[in-house]
């Protein structure tokens, strides 16, 4: 029933024909767009800096309410504190997530997810794929859900969450969210130990060719050069603007100010100018904005949701 495998076992995973990085993105988009896989709307990245794909309006605002909403998209993520000047083999301040949102979560969502892994070349007969408990919570979005991290031969390759609350409001219907860490997944598929060695296009361009210099410069910006006075000002302005827009019943532009405040806070955090006690206060401020936006979004849609779906808050 089991097999002894020596430490020196050859790396059967690192085949020459493994899928290049960009092909993986194209494959996932094509897979999730298929009608039998949810027929997802394939969106393009949100054009603002954000820490995770969950911040995209296609996830936050669209997971509220009863309407069917299936979408998939790549979202570049900025995590200033994770920058390592390009010197760490798997930590980046800028990386890509592939995000799938299926609302209501279909009964065969796990199978659909496993099908997507197969599509990018992960064979479930060869690899040990597990659903390991991991509950998700975003203090800045006032959101939480239950789910798993997905392990493939011991490596975490995705997050899988059933949203229960967003902005402090119950999610009815419940959306299932899948987040693939694309670089990590590609490292697994290609059998590569250093992210910068990833084959990007299958024609000689590596991930390092595209992003190494960016990591170096942006790390310097995040940690050393970002103007903290300006950032504090930006945060306050974004906060004010958001509140003003909420009063004008414009949740979409208000929410963009919330995204801006959140990223500005992340930069301040990377600059080390926010103390432990202040940290909680800043997170609380962003959460208040996010809640206000969700509230305003519900208010905009509530009558229609009630009439068409019998929805209640």
């Amino acid at each position: 029933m089991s097999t002894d495998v020596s430490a020196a076992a050859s790396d059967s995973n690192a085949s020459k024909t493994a899928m290049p990085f960009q092909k993986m993105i194209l494959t996932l988009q094509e897979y999730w767009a298929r009608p039998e896989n949810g027929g997802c709307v394939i969106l393009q990245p949100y054009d603002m800096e954000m820490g995770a794909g969950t911040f995209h309006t296609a996830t936050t605002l669209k997971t509220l309410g009863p309407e069917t909403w299936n979408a998939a998209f790549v979202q570049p993520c900025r995590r200033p504190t994770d920058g390592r000047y390009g010197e760490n083999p798997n930590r980046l301040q800028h990386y890509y997530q592939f995000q799938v949102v299926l609302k209501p979560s279909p009964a065969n969502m796990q199978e659909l997810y496993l099908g997507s892994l197969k599509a990018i070349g992960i064979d479930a007969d060869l690899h040990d794929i597990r659903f390991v408990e991991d509950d998700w919570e975003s203090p800045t979005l006032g959101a939480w859900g239950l789910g798993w991290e997905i392990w493939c031969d011991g490596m975490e390759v995705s997050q899988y969450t059933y949203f229960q609350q967003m902005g402090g409001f119950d999610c009815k219907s419940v959306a299932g969210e899948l987040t693939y860490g694309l670089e990590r997944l590609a490292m697994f598929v290609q059998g590569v130990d250093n992210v910068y060695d990833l084959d990007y296009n299958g024609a000689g361009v590596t991930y390092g060719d595209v992003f190494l210099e960016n990591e170096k410069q942006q790390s310097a910006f995040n940690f050393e050069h970002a103007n903290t006075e300006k950032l504090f000002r930006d945060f306050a302005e974004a906060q004010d603007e958001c509140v003003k827009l909420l009063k004008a019943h414009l949740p979409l532009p208000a929410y963009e100010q919330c995204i801006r405040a959140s990223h500005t806070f992340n930069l301040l955090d990377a600059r080390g100018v926010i103390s432990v006690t202040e940290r909680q206060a800043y997170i609380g401020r962003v959460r208040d904005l996010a809640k206000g936006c969700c509230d305003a979004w519900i208010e905009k849609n509530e009558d229609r949701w009630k009439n068409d779906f019998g929805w209640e808050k």
Partner: protein
Amino acid sequence: MADLLIELFSEEIPARMQKKASDDLKRMITDGLKAAGLIFDAADAYVTPRRLVLNVTGLPVSTPDVREERRGPRADAPEKAVEGFLRGAGVPREACEERETPKGTFLFAIIEKKGKKTAEVVAEVLKDTIKNFPWPKSQRWGTGSLKWVRPLHSILCILDGETIDLEVEGIKSGNTTSGHRFMAPSTFTVTGFDDYKAKLLNHKVMLDASERADLIEAKAKELAASKGLEWVEDRGLLAEVAGLIEWPVPLMGGFDASFMEVPEEVLILTMKKDQKYFVTRDPKTGKLAPYFITVANIEPSDGGTAVAAGNERVLSARLSDAKFFWDQDLKGRLDDNLDALKDIVFHKDLGSVQDRVERMKKLARYLADFIPGCNADEAERAAELAKADLVSNMVYEFPEVQGAMGRYYALKQGESDAVADAIKDHYSPLGPNDACPTAPVSVAVALAEKIDTLVGFFGIDQKPTGSKDPFALRRAALGVIRLITENNLRINFAKILTQAYLDTLVQVLNNYGDLFTGPEELKPLKEFKLGKKLSSSDDILSHSSKYLSLLNRRDVPTKTDNDSFIAEGSALFTSFLELESDLLSFLSDRLKVQQREKGVRHDLIDAVFANGDDDLVRVLNRVNALTTFLDTDDGANLLAGYKRAANILKIEEKKDERPYDGAVNPASLETAEEKTLADALGVNAAAAKAALEQEGFEGAMAALARLRAPIDAFFENVIVNADDAKIRENRLNILNSIRGAVNAVADFEMIDG
């Protein structure tokens, strides 16, 4: 007789919740069956990551018929009364019998209830169970409102081969289930438990978690042995891993030997906690080996090469991080970290970790005097470095190895073994079953750490309430008790408390405002601050009483700023007397809890504590002697005699509104029994006292035992409430002497019986 099989099939259930969930399923279903009057032979629950299963055997096919007779009003009672009775009983008039009784003719209703089909009962009970299942965390999914730990997909429910129909939130029951997610996902029908278990096995699912665990253990041992290694047993991990898979396939992998220079605590933590791997050891050296065992959920098509290689790569990346932190930390010394401790807040009212370390240093040095073989310099040094690893890279990344890393860094920089070990051990014992330090320096620092915690949080009035104990003060108190009693330390606890109290008080007040520029009256505190060690009890008392009077003197008008300094200062910190009494009673409560588990009567601990002894070793010795004594005939009778004497005294003292605590007057002794008792009291009270001074508790008990016969004879033959007031008073004084002599050993008033 019928057998019932239930399977609740869902998406992956967190491993940590599985055991309780299977227990809950069994409890809720069998309780429901029993409540309906269904008696069965046996019920067994099983759990895998995707299924909760219950097998109940030997059920009747229906609940028993019930026949009940109910007596009503007289047959000739007014119509209204009869109607009311019939309505209540739910039967028509014709269904009632009229019976002659000695009191007249009465109506009797015969109520017959046919038994309910077991299938109906099961359907109801199962529906309720699913709707009310006590998951620690549950969720909704899709468009439904049912809550389950993860989406619930199917309900299998069969009684004697027949499906019991039920529906919960759109999920209809059936007689089918599915096999292993990857290796045999097809759906199949089952007829009963044996069929179910066998078909699951054919579909690559081992139903029984203990069978999965056994298989993992056997195979893991085999894999380790093939490399000449030992599998390191870990029951907790084994249970967890058995809950992550339905078809266990242990595989071995390795890591680069260059990682072995990283302390093994870190290697083990990375493998076990982050990756759920079992570790192996070389039986010859006892050292960790560079091989691990992971348990896959499939039989990989290539025999496991890819799975092992993938796991090796993940582990290697994690160990590279750990090695980087280790190398970074070794570039500096622990002493370099001490400055950074002032930036870690221990508690907003108790200052930084650096403040805490300062207090622990003093306390450890002071405690060293009470610990045989403890070098005070080493104790202070170990306390100084005890928290230094908190700001190391490694502990920042892996908080669980705090202490252990400090030991390595201390050894690398040339500290003595005693100091290094104390750094590692000072958090111990962490609970009733954790190893308790015995090395003198370790004991000193471990005690200092816990006493500082207790005094600090009691001082700022953050005592545990009910189930809330956010600062783990109960654990700290138990740690103090274990460190003292298991090492047989003779510590005058009140003295230590005074010292700790002053240290903490000085710091708290200093954090509030500078004592050195504070009021003149606080001069003694300043001296103390300058490191004066309190040596004699007079010293301690005079110091503490000065602060007490200062801090409690809010009403006395002095210079305004002094007054406010003192008033606000005392609001910051509890007075010493209050802290001492609260903390000692907290410790005695914890001691009672701890001793109760060892079978010691808590009332005896109360009885001994009531005498105001704070030497825990002496308290326990005394409790032990008392326990033995009360088990003897003499002991039991003496207790009875004592209670009788005390009761009479209580009554008479209340009646007369005066205490009887005078000396016994030999001239007023009338009877022989009185004289004998008075003599015996004189001799034996003195003997017990002398024995107690030598801590000869058995001798003290023996002296008390000699009082038993005279006391019994006294109560047998002497009337306490004599007519002659003088004689009566003298006899009550004799009773008081009994009470006094006995209470000198322990407060018998507090003993049950």
